[in-house]
């Protein structure tokens, strides 16, 4: 078993409403799919353990609502995210065009330490629909955009039949840990009595 400590990774899933964010999660976590559409309200939370190179990770997945009226929740929800997953529907051009807005909005609201290198993953979902005949976003176009944003990994997925879902989330976890900063040694101060003055925080709360 993994001897090193388990890590918890916070993963935010973003994208227009109806692109299949919740379905992707359900496929990944519960291996289930339903054609019925149910709008997510606010956010749903799921957890799943993954193993990468002998190490156990817990993915804490924040499945957010795509509707615009929930966008105000951003700051609260995005804080401390380890990875952000952008989802579009390959059959709807608008959902692809909006990826840029989702990405920028995330970086603005989460204000991560190193925005240039913050790990994103893009998923082009619903490739199964109509045998691919209704598709409007080509893989080439999607990859080009991903390359222009600092080589974001791109996966074509189907939440319905499970294509690439496992692989995508493996990649998500790997990218999240790559971004892990070196942790300093935890070294708080020691009370200093030498100045003959009692060191006490001035705002004593008692």
């Amino acid at each position, binding site marked *: 078993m993994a001897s090193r400590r388990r890590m918890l990774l916070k993963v935010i899933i973003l994208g227009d409403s109806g692109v299949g964010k919740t379905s992707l999660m359900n496929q990944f*976590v519960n291996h289930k799919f339903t054609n019925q559409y149910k709008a997510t309200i606010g956010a749903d*939370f799921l957890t799943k353990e993954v193993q990468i190179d002998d190490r156990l990770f817990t993915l804490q997945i924040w499945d957010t609502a795509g509707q615009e009226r929930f966008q105000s929740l951003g700051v609260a929800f995005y*804080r401390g995210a380890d990875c952000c997953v952008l989802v579009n529907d390959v059959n709807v051009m608008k959902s692809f065009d909006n990826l840029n807005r989702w990405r920028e909005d995330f970086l603005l609201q989460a204000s991560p330490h190193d925005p240039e290198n913050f790990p994103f993953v893009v998923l082009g979902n619903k490739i199964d629909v109509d045998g691919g005949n209704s598709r409007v976003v080509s893989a080439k176009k999607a990859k080009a955009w991903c390359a222009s944003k600092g080589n974001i990994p791109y996966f074509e997925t189907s939440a319905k039949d499970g294509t690439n879902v496992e692989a995508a989330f493996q990649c998500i976890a790997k990218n999240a840990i790559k971004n892990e900063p070196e942790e300093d040694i935890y070294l*708080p101060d020691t009370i200093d009595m030498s100045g003959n003055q009692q060191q006490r925080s001035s705002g004593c709360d*008692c």
Partner: protein
Amino acid sequence: MASDSDSAYDSAADQNPNSLPDTPINHQFNSAIDDHLSSLTLTPLNDAVSDLAPSQSSNNVLDANSLADQIEAIDRNSSPEFEVSTVETTLEVAVSSEVVVVVEERENNLERESNLESDGGVVVWREVEGDAVASPSSSGYAGERGSSSASSASGIEEIEEHQVRVRDRSLVNGIADSQPAWIPGKRHENEDDASISWRKRKKHFFILSHSGKPIYSRYGDEHKLAGFSATLQAIISFVENGGDRVKLVRAGKHQVVFLVKGPIYLVCISCTEEPYESLRGQLELLYGQMILILTKSVNRCFEKNSKFDMTPLLGGTDAVFSSLIHSFSWNPATFLHAYTCLPLAYPTRQAAGAILQDVADSGVLFAILMCKHKVVSLVGAHKTSLHPNDMLLLSNFVMSSESFRTSESFSPICLPKYNPMAFLYAYVQYLDVNTYLVLLTTNSDAFYHLKECRIHIEAVLLKANLLTEVQRSMLDGGMHVEDLPADPSSRTGSASSHLGQHSPDRFRDTRTGVGGPCGLWHFIYRSIYLDQYVSSEFSSPINTPQQQKRLYRAYQKIYASMHDKGFGPHKTQFRRDENYVLLCWVTQDFELYAAFDPLADKALAIKTCNRVCQWVKDVENEIFLLGASPFSW
């Protein structure tokens, strides 16, 4: 738990503006003051508290006649349920079960109403709609939803984790030590929020980071609860985004209490009917325990990196937190904010203090000798003194960490009330199975010096036979209600009562008796000047851990109501329900909490309280640490 609607809730406020006695206890034993009767003012029927006109008596004596009359006059239907709802504006959400959200506006600290509508522009979490307690809505257990709403929880029994009493251990601890055995370590680690057993637990505690990463959970594995933890963060952050702060959510029988400490969020979910103030105080202590281990410098880690995961820093400390949470149900120090001493003859404690003072003069900041959670003696350099909460957290840390028992240790610790930002160093050594010495210093190189101090102290203590006396006191216990001296007015000797002088048949009494005189079952006396309390030993009929816990919860409730900022502070309260008569009396000098047989006579109970106070006064040399500098800031 007693249902409040059945109980007669009687209380009275006795204002004593002239009372400024020099000594903690100053009594007149003749309690009949007729003038009281004419100066009574009764409050409206729906008010549980009534004020007495200023008393003509300048003594701290409970007046049986006036109090009893007043009690009769107050409406019996008044229930304490209104406590929170009148202080804080609450709101009920019309969903499957009653959900009340109390928020506090950050800017001006005023409570205000906050509406969560079930649809429309305002966000509602599904778990609020469906289940009574917040829980993840789509974590793969949709089939269970609805089966565990609070309103249908009537069949739920509290699973008594820690109430298992290990026979061998209770023998070692002696008959007087009534605290139930606590089993160290995490309980029910394989549970998560999908487990029915997890959902049925009566009291959950969670610590999480402001990004929703779990730090500690009382039950279940933190990682498996990551989704639940995220839900909690979402609730807190959502309310914060609106410039408010969520304090309390009521959902049927459950209360969800929130405490935000910078990047650290603490949450308690409880259906124990404890007051909000008590639960919040418990969260404060839990936070203090975390600070004791890490200092507040941990905030800097979050400033640098908001996704910081602090669980590794707390590695191996599960037992410290679970032991503290366990103490919320047996240790009155957790709500009284006072410490208690091991009863010892005055010269014995003096001798221990003298040797500790020796080392304190050699650069030790605090020297503390304790037996379990009771202080034998303590000394602080430079007039510095320890806050009772710091002592509670320190002794909990030492007692719950197994490694301290096996070897001498030197460990960084932080005293949150002394200085939350920085570490001290603690030298810890057990001198026998229950007695341990803690020497605190600011010098990280002081181990060998402190080791020498300990050798010196231990030699002196052994020579003076002090450890033997400590063990004997552990066995004998302190104040037994059966030993309450007879009516002081008929007493002949002035200072004749000593704790050592038990009546020979006391041991028979504790097994078969019905408590002390006049139906007195138990009492706690807290000295305000000393920051110390003394609690009588438990005896029949309060002799099981469950009964003791129930009594402590009742004390805790009456403590909260006495200190309620909206109505209090009160002076006296008399409350009768099917379990007890509780009598509480607060003066400038002390607080007395006494429990009687539910059929006890009021006037006699009040008289008995006066006798208890006199008794405490008579033996204060033995039960309190006198001459310790009072808490100074």
